[in-house]
Each structure stands twice: as structure tokens, then as C-alpha cells.
């Protein structure tokens, strides 16, 4: 059987050190020949990866060049750290980083607990059919694009035809265009992000909860634990590992924002506060055609994110049993 053959070949592989280079190449070639079908299956995917993911990676060289469309990326002259230095000099960049951090930290503080709380509330619902229906409805917004969700939000908050206008009239508060004021706009971004993602986000926590052995709860009931004590001392502790892991790895996204959301919700009145790194890269790169500068910002951001990821993984290794590698 093929599998057995492969296992034998693995043993050959381990002994390879003692064999001459040509001999080992021959053996590699034999493995490749045995596995030609498996290797054939990875070819289309591999080609797509190389063309659309690996080839653009060499484009980051743009960050160190003066791009000339005629000469191409490779032929363009080197300019050293000119663009990287520009990142430090341009005052706008500081503002952009501040905005990005503000959104990711506020987003984390508000958006992280929401699906956990929702999952616990779902778990405590007794009426089964009702629970199923609410859950199904709660996943729906996750499957719509931000173009649509921004449209829904704008209509809901319209002073004239929206629910906001209705409530403001009812309470007699003066109506404004909420989307055009900075602080309300930030709150709208945070809330709509929860609205869209909370239901789907609760799935993973519910999956963990459904894996808890019911005997724990039964034993707690015998010991006289109230419902709240059962949640507090059984359900939540079972969620700790996944919560820890999610918190640690959310650090990786500190410098990233939800481009789709912000792009669809922003308007000329909130240009300053909506200018986050992803938007800035898009603007400088595609709208202002500062290819090199935009690429340099993207590169610096990627490097910092990868460092954060490695750091997060180190911390995860120490405090939790799950790691990425």
C-alpha cells in the first residue's frame, strides 16, 4: 500500500545524512514520483499563491525606490530610507496613528465582551425554539456587506425618516445629522460594528459552552449553587482559555482598522477622525498616487504587526496552552 511505502521512504529520509548528495536527491525524486498525484493537486493553488500573494511581496521594494512606470519596480532607482524618514516627518502620520489606535482600543473594549455576554445570555435561555430563532436572526448582519449596513445605519439615523428623528421628536430634542459630528460618528461606528458582529461572534463561545459536561451543573445544583453562581463558577471559567487567547491575539490588530466600515460610513464632515492607517494608505496610494510613500507606510505597519504577532504568540505560550506555532 502506498502509505506503507511512504513510511518506508520516511525512514530512508531519516538515514539520508549518511548518504551522498546524489543518492539523497535520487531518493527525494522517488518520493516525488510516488506522490505525483498529491503534488499535482497542490499545483493550481500554489500557482495562485505565487502569482497573487508572493509576487506582490517583492513590490514592497517600492518603499525604498523612486518609482518610474517606464522602468518598472526593479529598474527604478534606489532612494534608501527616504520614504521611511518621511513617515516620521509628515505630521499627518501621527494623527493617523492616533485615530487608528483610538478605534482599535475602543473597539476592543466595547466589542470584545459583547459576544461573550450574548453567548451567556443565549445559554441561559430556556425556550428552545425562541433561542434558535433569535440566534439565527443575530447572525444575519454578519453576512451583509458594509455598503449595505452603512446604508441601513444612515436611514435609521436620518433626522427626517429615521427612528432617530422619531425619538428626537418624541423627546423634543433638537435634531442634528449625527453622522456629521465627530463624537456621535465614532460611537455610531463602534455600535454598528457590534450590531453586525455580535451574533456571529457568539458562535465560538456557544460552541465551547455546549462542550461543558452537564454533570458539573448537576453537581453544583446538588451543592445548592444558584443559577448566577453556576454561570460565575462553571460557565465563565470554561471560557477562560479561549478568552485569554482572543485577548492576546487581538493585540495583533492594533494597527489595523475595518477599512470597509470606515470607508462606507465616512463623510466630508468627519474626515479628520476617520483618517485611520488603512484609509490613509488608500488615499495616499491610489488617490494621490504617492505609490512609494503609501507602500512604505504599509510595510512599516506590517512589520510592527508581525512583531506584535510573535510577541503575542510568546505570551500565549506562557499563559495558555494554545499557540499558533
Amino acid at each position: 500500500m502506498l502509505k506503507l511505502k511512504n513510511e518506508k521512504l520516511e525512514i530512508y529520509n531519516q538515514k539520508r545524512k549518511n548518504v551522498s548528495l546524489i543518492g539523497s536527491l535520487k531518493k527525494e525524486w522517488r518520493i516525488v514520483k510516488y506522490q505525483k498525484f498529491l503534488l499535482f493537486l497542490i499545483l493550481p493553488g500554489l500557482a495562485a499563491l505565487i502569482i497573487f500573494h508572493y509576487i506582490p511581496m517583492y513590490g514592497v521594494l517600492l518603499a525604498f525606490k523612486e518609482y518610474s512606470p517606464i522602468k518598472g519596480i526593479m529598474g527604478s532607482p534606489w532612494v534608501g530610507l527616504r520614504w521611511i524618514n518621511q513617515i516620521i516627518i509628515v505630521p499627518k502620520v501621527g494623527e493617523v496613528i492616533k485615530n487608528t489606535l483610538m478605534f482599535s482600543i475602543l473597539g476592543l473594549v466595547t466589542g470584545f465582551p459583547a459576544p461573550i455576554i450574548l453567548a451567556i445570555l443565549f445559554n441561559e435561555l430556556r425556550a428552545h425554539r425562541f433561542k434558535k430563532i433569535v440566534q439565527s436572526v443575530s447572525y444575519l448582519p454578519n453576512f451583509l456587506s458594509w455598503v449595505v449596513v452603512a446604508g441601513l445605519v444612515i436611514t435609521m439615523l436620518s433626522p427626517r425618516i429615521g427612528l432617530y428623528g422619531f425619538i428626537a421628536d418624541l423627546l423634543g430634542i433638537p435634531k442634528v445629522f449625527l453622522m456629521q459630528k465627530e463624537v456621535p460618528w465614532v460611537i455610531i461606528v463602534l455600535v454598528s460594528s457590534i450590531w453586525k458582529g455580535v451574533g456571529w461572534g457568539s458562535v465560538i463561545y456557544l460552541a465551547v459552552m455546549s462542550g461543558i459536561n452537564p454533570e458539573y451543573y448537576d453537581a453544583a445544583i446538588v451543592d445548592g449553587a444558584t443559577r448566577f453562581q453556576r454561570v460565575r463558577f462553571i460557565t465563565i471559567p470554561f471560557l477562560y482559555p479561549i478568552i485569554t487567547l482572543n485577548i492576546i491575539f487581538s493585540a495583533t490588530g492594533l494597527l489595523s482598522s475595518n477599512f470597509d466600515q470606515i470607508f462606507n460610513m465616512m463623510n466630508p464632515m468627519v474626515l479628520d477622525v476617520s483618517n485611520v492607517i488603512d484609509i490613509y494608505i488608500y488615499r495616499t496610494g491610489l488617490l494621490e498616487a504617492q505609490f512609494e510613500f503609501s507602500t512604505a507606510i504599509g510595510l512599516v505597519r506590517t512589520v510592527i504587526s508581525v512583531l506584535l504577532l510573535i510577541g503575542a504568540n510568546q505570551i500565549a505560550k506562557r499563559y495558555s496552552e494554545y499557540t499558533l506555532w
Partner: protein
Amino acid sequence: MTTKRSLAEKVFDITNIFFMIFFTISILLPFWLQIVTSTSAVSGDRLAGFRLFPSHFTMNAYKLVLSNALLLQAYVNTIFRTVAGTLLQIIVTAAFAYSLSKKYLWKRNFWTVVILIPLYFSGGLIPTFLLIKGLGLYDNLLVYILPGIFASMNAVFIRNYMMSLPQEMEESARVDGANEITIFARLIMPLSMPILATVALWTGVGHWNSWFDSMIYTNKPENSTLAYLLYRILYQEAQAYNGVSRDAMRALESQTVKIVPESLQAATLMVTILPIIFLYPFLQRYFVKGIVVGSLKG
């Protein structure tokens, strides 16, 4: 095992149910408001405030929207990319995942690293843009399909699922004389249907919702996807109604009630999401199946 509920628990249960009802309404109301707006007409010149039911109920906004040739073309483009893009991605990704699921695959760890690196490191917006232009994919409908033909995360999900399948079936198929191709195409792929369905749904929804690639990689209006056309109609109103024929507009305006741009926008939004809303109740359990399987077995 049941116990008598204390007063505090009863209060909690009732509050919880009320919260859930409120939560459900908060999700459904925005959609309802779009339906109301899209089916309303006005006798003056603007819509009259917040309403839970349409004023002067009419489907004229939908007639106008559907008379827009650009919208119909965008619909065709979007269906094309959703069907072709999803099928191709599933085949290419599942094939890769199948090989990765074999522990004895030649250089298995290397291939795993190769698919994971793009998740964390990418060339960025501009280099990708230049590549797309260089490949002649600019303003070409294939730009919607080819770059997404392989998805790393989905490959990991499918691989995990395939690794969880019992080995014995494959071995007995081999004893019965099945060759490599038969085992992959006739045994493993059908057995992996649950995860393939889930991943296909995610990918399909992603295609249906895509607008960014349409915005940066296409220029001709007839190459637009539905979501990007909606973006233009919602947020760049002025140029958006080019596609609505003048005659159709005038024919409907001669009546005593008028259609306002807000109704047209709402009708376009509804037309864009209708396929998802209609299919969602039937497909939603498949959406969830995969995330649970994939994440717990990883």
C-alpha cells in the same frame, strides 16, 4: 434536574427574554425601514417622517430600479463571480487541502508555511494594484475570480476536517482497488461535503458582497459589481441614476404621487440583499456547522 426558581432568577429570565426580543427587533427594524421607504411614494416633495408602514404604497421604485440596465449588468456580473469564483476556489483549495491532510506528503511542513505566510504578510495595496494592471486584469471580469482562487484560511479548515475522517475507509477503498484519483474524487470529497458547503457559503457571500476590487480594479460602469453599484447609488448620488432611463422616470412622475431618490436608494439596497435574505433561512445552519467543526478540531 430542576430546582425551584428564586425570585431573582425569574426576574433575570424575564429580563433576558425581553432583551432578546429587543435585540431581534433592533436587527430586523433597519431592514423593515428600507422596505417601507422603498415602497413609499410622496404627494408633496419629500417623505413624511418616520413610518412603520408605507405611505402611498407603490412598487414603482422597484420598477425604476430594475429598468436600470447598469443594475441588471451588475447583477449578472455578481452572479457570475459568485458562482464561478466560489466553485473554482473550492476545487483548487480542497485539492490543496487534501494533499496537506496526508501526513506523509513530501515537504508537508514547507507547504503549510507557504500557505500561512500570506495571512500575515502581504505586498500591500499598491504592489498588488500594479501586478493586476501588469497581468492585464484591469477592467477585466476575471479580476473578480483569479486572485481569490485559493484561500489559505479555508484550506486550513478543509484540511482539519479531512484529517478527522476515519483512515479505515480510505484503506479499505485501496484494498478494493480504488486508485488515487478515485479516492480523492469519489470518497474524500463527498465525505467532506459538510465543510465544503460551509466554506462555499462563506466564499459565496464574500463574492456577493465584494465592492472594493470593483472600485479599484474596474473603471467601466458595466464591469461593476452589485455591491459597488450600490455604493455609488447610496453615497455618490449625483452620477448614480445615469442608468435609470429618462422615459421611465418621466412616465412615473406624471402621476400624482412621486418617487423620491430615498425610495430608489432603498429599493436598490433591497434588490441587492434579497438573494441573501431569501436564501439565509434555508442555508443558515450550514454557515454555523463549519465554524464549529473547523475551530474545535484545529
